């Protein structure tokens, strides 16, 4: 069985931990440079502020409705994510960190475990320990666990934040409720197309013939259909949501040296950057993680992730690798045998949107250089053109007028407690 754990309105929830008076109040969080809305609390969604909205266009809405606006504080969100993930890792033998606020847990050989109760216990523990509320969906495939999480989030009172799909009746009921565009892995293009065919709910999608799905939506679509039917197609770590691009590997051997991991992280960064360039987008934040072999209980265990907020959006291999290596240096600890590491690029924005600003951008020369690198690699067929270690010493300034304190990572910015 898989459990998908999702933090509720994660960025807004992080802000609320240290500003409890904002519970139940509308909150939006802006992207780097305070450009556009990247997160909204449920209360803010009701004012019709779309995801990605340009902040200046909604300034009036913010003021008139008393909406609390924050610059993105990735030092805070990253640290809170780290706390949530480290708690979660103690609840299952295997875990996949899927994004800054989502993780899959895999329960195997846990037949006798009451998963509903276990889920409620996880929700209670994480929510109490970190102040960040979470929801959990449990099912026998990853795609269905995503569906179950939707149900848990939509009906918090009824479910207590946990929904278990453990029979066909529940599976069909959930799929009949879930709009097709909300299905994990169905992009807006496919959703539109299916809608045009009168397929508006996930259930109708699962009733399509396999052949049609394979022909029109490729094997990826077919795999998804099977997953929704309860047939196991995806193990941990196989596909990634569009909002994040991740490159992670389980190593064939265990690494102990910083230099070895630095090389891997550097390579992962280059792969992520290539994917970003291919789809014409940039990232604004990076998550780097590493952990030891969870199956080797005889060895000392260590697991850590860090989120680096980038001073400007970029898809340059050089820049992403540099920030990733900086992040790695911060979380690497000597004396452990590392089995897995990865780079996840997050907060993805289109490349064109970045051209407007003159001083706060990625090095424009890199774009040209990366074009050359990509073309060379494409023509040679293999990744022959690689990064040497390159130093970049430009300083950047970011517009972050509404940044909250780094409550959990800076001693000078911690909460004041009155007596």
């Amino acid at each position, binding site marked *: 069985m898989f459990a998908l754990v999702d933090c509720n309105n994660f960025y807004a929830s992080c802000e609320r931990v240290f500003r409890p*008076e904002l519970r139940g109040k509308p909150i939006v969080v802006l992207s780097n440079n305070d450009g556009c809305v990247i997160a909204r609390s449920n209360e803010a969604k009701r004012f019709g502020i779309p995801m990605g909205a340009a902040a200046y266009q909604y300034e009036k809405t913010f003021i008139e409705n008393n909406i609390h606006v924050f610059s993105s504080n990735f030092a805070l969100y990253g640290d809170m994510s780290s706390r*949530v993930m480290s708690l979660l890792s103690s609840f299952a033998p295997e875990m996949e960190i899927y994004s800054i606020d989502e993780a899959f847990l895999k329960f195997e050989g846990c037949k006798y475990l009451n998963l509903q109760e276990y889920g409620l216990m996880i929700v209670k523990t994480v929510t109490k320990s970190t102040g960040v509320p979470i929801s959990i969906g449990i099912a026998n495939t990853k795609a269905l666990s995503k569906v179950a999480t939707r149900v848990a989030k939509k009906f918090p009172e009824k479910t207590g934040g946990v929904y278990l799909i453990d029979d066909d009746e529940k599976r069909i009921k959930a799929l009949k409720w879930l709009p097709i565009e909300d299905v994990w892995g169905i992009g807006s293009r496919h959703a539109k197309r299916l809608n045009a065919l009168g397929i508006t709910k996930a259930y109708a999608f699962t009733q399509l013939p396999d052949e049609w799905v394979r022909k029109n939506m490729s094997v990826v679509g077919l795999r998804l259909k099977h997953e929704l039917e309860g047939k196991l197609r995806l193990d941990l770590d196989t596909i990634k949501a569009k909002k994040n691009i991740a490159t992670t590997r389980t190593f064939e051997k265990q690494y102990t040296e910083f230099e070895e991991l630095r090389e891997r992280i550097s390579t992962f960064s280059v792969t992520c950057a290539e994917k970003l360039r291919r789809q014409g987008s940039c990232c604004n934040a990076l998550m780097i993680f590493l952990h030891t072999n969870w199956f080797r209980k005889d060895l000392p265990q260590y697991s850590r992730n860090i989120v680096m907020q980038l001073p400007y959006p970029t898809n340059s291999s050089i820049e992403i690798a540099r920030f990733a290596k900086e992040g790695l240096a911060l979380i690497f600890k000597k004396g452990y045998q590392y089995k897995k590491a990865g780079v996840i690029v997050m907060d993805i924005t289109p490349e064109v949107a970045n051209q407007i600003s003159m001083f706060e951008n990625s090095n424009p020369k890199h774009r040209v250089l990366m074009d050359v690198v990509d073309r060379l690699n494409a023509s040679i067929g293999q990744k022959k053109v690689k990064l040497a270690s390159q130093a970049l010493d430009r300083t950047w300034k970011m517009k972050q007028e509404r940044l909250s304190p780094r409550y959990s990572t800076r001693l000078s910015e911690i909460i*004041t*407690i009155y*007596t």
Partner: protein
Amino acid sequence: MEALHPHKIPGLVILSVSTETKLDRPFIDQGISAGFPSPAQDFIDLSIDLNKELIQHPASTFFGRVKGNSMIDIGISNGDLLIVDKSLEATDGKIAVCYVDGEFTVKRLKVEKDCYWLLPENESYKPIKVTAENDFIVWGIVVFVIKAL
């Protein structure tokens, strides 16, 4: 710098410290004695890591800075650093960081049937009664106080 349990009578444990985030001090586990040195003395494998000693649950531990004097009788004074664990249960008698009507405050908890009492540890302050009327949460439990001398 000293570290003390707020629940106990302040028994001081004096530790040498540095300003590094992680405090690793070589620690030689051998009483002072004259005479032939033990060969085991070369085997220095123990160290004091204050992160480990003072933070039992890293994922749920946060810090806060004290402002005010209502808790000075148990050694919590203005400017002290509180180590707060959110995972611990808010039971009767605990020193808790609470959020009451717009601000964080630290007090001793007295749990009653239909209300909480927030008890100061300073004679010149009065207990505060908290009912359903108040915007109130117990935010975390204080596990250590760190003060600069």
